[in-house]
């Protein structure tokens, strides 16, 4: 059943993302071809007559490109919230919650598909920049940058960095779900209550982090602060402990949302 939920969740969201992804890559390519940055920066010999149709097009294509990037980021956030709020807690919830499916499967399917779009949005934006900026020997440059990272942070970092950003995104999405679920406990002003809940969870997380930092100051943070060039093992300890901490906080958000939707569901 989880597979079917994933299928429909992907279908329902792909309609919004795919056109924007295609548009970004298209405009990155257009900008690469007409190379407007050189022209926009070059003011020598600019006259009223020189402000031709072509120049207008150049400026327009740059503006559209950046607007699309902002739109993609904003859309990723909005859809994470909207799919949970509308599809589960709105009228569509009457259908979703009467399917022979467990509540946790609804949450997991929304989470996984949200993660998928977060990752894809990131990849599309980065690729569009790469399309745009005409780096000579692109592959060689990427290898060089990765090499720098390895030298400074160590090999494990290369594996841990993507995993930790994944954990961070998961934590964020589950916090949003939990905040929306807590907001749902109220009979009035549910959106406002969800905002309040988000702030509450945020403060709670900060308190937990502070306690964690104080508790482990000697073991982790002191050596890190004192060494000029941090050694790999220190970075590793810090990263792994943060990853564990955020995984636990994410799991707590998941459990809270699951309990609320199971026992306290009250669709309008």
């Amino acid at each position, binding site marked *: 059943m989880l597979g079917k939920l994933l299928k*429909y969740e992907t279908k329902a969201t792909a309609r919004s993302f795919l056109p924007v992804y295609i548009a970004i890559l298209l405009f990155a390519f257009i900008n690469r071809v007409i190379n407007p940055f050189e022209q926009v920066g070059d003011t020598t010999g600019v006259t009223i007559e020189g402000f031709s149709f072509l120049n207008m097009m150049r400026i327009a294509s740059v503006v559209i490109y950046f607007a699309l990037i902002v739109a993609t980021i904003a859309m990723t956030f909005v859809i994470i919230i909207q799919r949970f709020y509308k599809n589960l807690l709105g009228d569509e*919830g*009457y259908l979703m919650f009467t399917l022979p*499916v467990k509540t946790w499967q609804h949450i997991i399917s929304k989470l996984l598909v949200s993660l998928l779009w977060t990752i894809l949005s990131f990849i599309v934006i980065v690729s569009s920049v790469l399309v745009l900026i005409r780096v000579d020997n692109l592959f060689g440059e990427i290898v060089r940058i990765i090499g720098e990272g390895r030298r400074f942070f160590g090999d494990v970092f290369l594996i841990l960095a993507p995993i930790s950003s994944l954990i961070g995104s998961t934590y964020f999405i589950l916090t949003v779900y939990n905040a929306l679920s807590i907001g749902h406990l109220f009979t009035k002003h549910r959106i406002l209550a969800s905002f309040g809940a988000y702030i509450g969870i945020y403060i709670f997380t900060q308190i937990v982090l502070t306690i964690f930092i104080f508790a482990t100051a000697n073991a982790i943070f002191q050596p890190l602060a004192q060494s000029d060039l941090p050694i790999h093992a220190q970075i590793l300890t810090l990263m792994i402990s943060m990853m564990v901490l955020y995984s636990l906080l994410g799991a707590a958000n998941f459990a809270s949302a699951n309990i609320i939707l199971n026992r306290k569901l009250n669709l309008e």
Partner: protein
Amino acid sequence: MSNLLECKNLTKTFGSTIALWDVNLEIGHGRIIGLLGPNASGKTTFIKLCNDLLTPTKGEILIGGDRPGIRTKGVVSYLPEKTYLNDWMRASDIIEFFKDFYEDFNPAKAYDMLGKLNINPKDRLKTMSKGTKEKVQLILVMSREAKLYLLDEPIGGVDPAARDYILNTILSNYSEDATVIISTHLISDIEKILDDIIFIKEGQVVMNKTVDEIREESGKSVDALFREVFKC
């Protein structure tokens, strides 16, 4: 035969508001039951509790021996009073959706009924009127070969001609041992198809009888009796 649906001391409160109070019911197979009561009497709360959309404050509901959950959802077909259809889907997409999730769903039946009502399966739900959406929803719900149908105000929003069609659809689409519970306050329209009636008032069952019993005992129609019981 064991009961299809059983309620024991079923109570639901929202804060200090009582929606249902100590309801005890036993409902068998193969009945068409009118769940009748004025607005805010607890009809929708009862149906939502049966669908696991609400959790009882006290007492329990058993459907085929199970508490509302994943097993009962596979055998209960529910028509809510809200339109729950995703706007972006076509009628044919939502039929696929139902086929995917409900084992007892019969797509051929659904397409057949869409055709009879002149609804194009390729039309997007977004472009449909409210009444048409309600019809699509009813078609989906009645195309399941479920054990229990829970229809919350199925005829509230449609015109009288469509009302007749819908009642015929209900009558001709449920199998012999399935039970249909219809909640409504438009009694005269559905009176002729009912086997039993449950009158519900301020969260309590005030009468639970067969339509024949009512006619014999009081010599009145259900509609007339309703007006008497719930006289303001």
